[in-house]
C-alpha cells in the first residue's frame, strides 16, 4: 500500500504526458497519411498510364517495348555504377575528414563547413559549366608548359572520372552534413579513447568504431547521394555521358507510354536498392543515432 502511494506522483505525471501524446499521435497519423498520398498518387498515376498502351486493354506492352531497347540497359547500368562510385569515394573522402576535424582539428571546422556548402552555392548547371571550361583543355604546371593532365573530356575514362568528381561535389553538402550530425550525436572522443586504450590503430578506429556508430547518418547520406546521381541529367547531358537521365529525356520526346513505364521501373528498382542499403546496415540504422 505504501509502495503504491509513493509511486503515485510519478504515475500521475506519466498519465498527463501520455494523454498529450495521444493527441500528438493523432496529428502524426494525419501528417503521415497526407505525405503518403502525395507520394503515392503520382506513382499510381504513372503506373496506370504505363499499362494503357493498347487501347481498352490493361497490359505490359509499354514495358516490353522499353526493355527491348538495348540503350536502356546500357544507360541504366552506367548510372547505377556512377552512383556507387560516387558514394564509395564520398565516404572515403568525407568520413575521415569529418572525424579528424571533430577530434583533432576544430580550428578547420569553419573552413571545412564553408567548403562543403560551396556546392550548394554552385548548382549542377553552373558546376558543369565550370568543369567543362576547366577540364576540356590540358592542365599545365604553371610557367613551365609541362603538361600535367590531358583534357579529361576527350577520353571515356577521363569523362567518367570527371562526372564522378562532379557528383561527389553535388552530394557533398548532404553527405558531410549527415555524417557530421551523426558524429555530433555519438561521443566520438570517448569512443576513440576507448578504442585506443584497447590498442586499436587509426584505420581500425575509423572502420570498426566510427563507421558503425555513424551508420545511420551514412545511410541518410548514401540515400541522398543515390537520389542525386541516378536519373541525374544536367551533368550527364552537358558532359556527354550516356547516362540514364538523358536517355529517359530523349525517349520522353518521342514516345507516349514507354517513358511512364520506365519512370515507374526506375522507382521500383531504386526502392529495391534503398531497401538493400538499409538491410546491409542492419535495418536499424537510427538506433546508433538515438544512442
Amino acid at each position, binding site marked *: 500500500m505504501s509502495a503504491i502511494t509513493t509511486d503515485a506522483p510519478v504515475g500521475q505525471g506519466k498519465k498527463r504526458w501520455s494523454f498529450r501524446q495521444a493527441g500528438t499521435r493523432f496529428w502524426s497519423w494525419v501528417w503521415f497519411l497526407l505525405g503518403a498520398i502525395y507520394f503515392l498518387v503520382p506513382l499510381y498515376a504513372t503506373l496506370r498510364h504505363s499499362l494503357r498502351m493498347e487501347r481498352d486493354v490493361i497490359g505490359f506492352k509499354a514495358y516490353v517495348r522499353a526493355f527491348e531497347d538495348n540503350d536502356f540497359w546500357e544507360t541504366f547500368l552506367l548510372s547505377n555504377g556512377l552512383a556507387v562510385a560516387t558514394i564509395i569515394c564520398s565516404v572515403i573522402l568525407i568520413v575521415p575528414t569529418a572525424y579528424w576535424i571533430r577530434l583533432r582539428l576544430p580550428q578547420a571546422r569553419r573552413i571545412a563547413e564553408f567548403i562543403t556548402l*560551396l556546392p550548394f552555392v554552385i548548382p549542377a548547371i553552373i558546376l558543369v559549366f565550370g*568543369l567543362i571550361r576547366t577540364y576540356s583543355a590540358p592542365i599545365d604546371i604553371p610557367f613551365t608548359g609541362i603538361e600535367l593532365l590531358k583534357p579529361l573530356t576527350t577520353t571515356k575514362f577521363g569523362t567518367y572520372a570527371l562526372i564522378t568528381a562532379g557528383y561527389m561535389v553535388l552530394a557533398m553538402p548532404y553527405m558531410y552534413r549527415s555524417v557530421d550530425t551523426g558524429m555530433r550525436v555519438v561521443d566520438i572522443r570517448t569512443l576513440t579513447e576507448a578504442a585506443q586504450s584497447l590498442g586499436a590503430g587509426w584505420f581500425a578506429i575509423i572502420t570498426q568504431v566510427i563507421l558503425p556508430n555513424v551508420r545511420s547518418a551514412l545511410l541518410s547520406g548514401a540515400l541522398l547521394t543515390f537520389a542525386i546521381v541516378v536519373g541525374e541529367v544536367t551533368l550527364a547531358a552537358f558532359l556527354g555521358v550516356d547516362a540514364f537521365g538523358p536517355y529517359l529525356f530523349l525517349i520522353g520526346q518521342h514516345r507516349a507510354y514507354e517513358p511512364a513505364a520506365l519512370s515507374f521501373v526506375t522507382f521500383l528498382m531504386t526502392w529495391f536498392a534503398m531497401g538493400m542499403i538499409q538491410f546491409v546496415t542492419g535495418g536499424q540504422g537510427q538506433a546508433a543515432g538515438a544512442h
Partner: protein
Amino acid sequence: MAQTSMSLPRVKEPSNLKNWFGVTPFFLFAILFIVLPSLYLVEGSFFNAEGRFTFQNYLDLFTTPLIVEAYKLSIQISAATAIGGGVFGFLLAYAITVGGLPRQLRSALITFSGVASNFAGVPLAFAFIATLGRRGFVTLQLLEQFGIDLYKSGFDLYTFWGLTAIYMFFQFPLMVLVMVPALDGLKKEWREAAENLGATYFQYWTRIAMPILLPSILGSMILLFGNAFGAYATAYALTGGRLGIITIQIGAQIRGDVLHNPGLGYAMAMGMVIIMAVSLAGYSWLQKVSERWLR
C-alpha cells in the same frame, strides 16, 4: 591557444601541422573540382565579347528583361517550395521520430523519402504529367467525380503552380531526411528533466525542443531553397525550356550563346551564385546558433 592556432600552427605546435595533413585530400579535392571551375567562370564574367575587361555584364543583368524575369520566377518558386516543403517535411519527420508512430512506418518513410528525392528530374516530370497534366489521372478524377475542371479554374501544370507542386515532391522528403537526425539528437534526458520539473508537453516543445531545433529547421529550409533554385532537369523535361526559370536560361546559354555575349552568360551564372551565397551566409549563422545545444 585558440587565437594562435590559426596563425602560428608551425611555430607553437609541431603536431598541429601534422594534424592539417589529415584533411589535405579533402581540401585538394575541393580546390580542383569546386574552386578552380568557379574561378574560370568568374574570370569570364569580367570580359566582353571583344575580350576586354569590363563590368558591363553585371550591369546588363538588371536591364535585360529575359534575365530579370527568370530570376524573379526562380526565386518565387524556390521560396514557396522551401517554406511549404520545409514545414510539411518537418511535421512528417516529427511524426515518425517523436510523434509516436510505429517504428516500421519510420523506416518505410525514410526509405520512401530517399526514393522520392531520387525521383527528381525527368521521371518526376513524367509522373506529374500523368497525374496533373491535361489528361492526368487526378485531373480526370476531379472532373468526373466532383465536376471540378482544374484547368478551367486557372491551374496549369506548365506554369508556376504546376512546377511548385512538382518541386514539393522532392522538397519535403529531403526535409524529412535532414530533419530526422536532428530530431533524434533531442536527448531523452531533457524531456525527462522537463517532465520531472512539472512542465507540460506543450511547454517542453515551445521552451526546450523548438528553440534547440529552430536553427536546424531554418537551416534545412535554406537547403531546400537552394535545392529548388538550382534545379534544372525537372523544369526542362516538363516544359522543354518554355518556362523561363534562371537555370533554363543558363542551360540555353551553355548550349548556344542565346544572349550573343558569353560574358553576360557567365555574369548570369554568377548572379545565381551570389543569391545562393547570401542564403549560405544565413545558413552558416544558423548553424553556429544550433551548435550551442546539439553538440
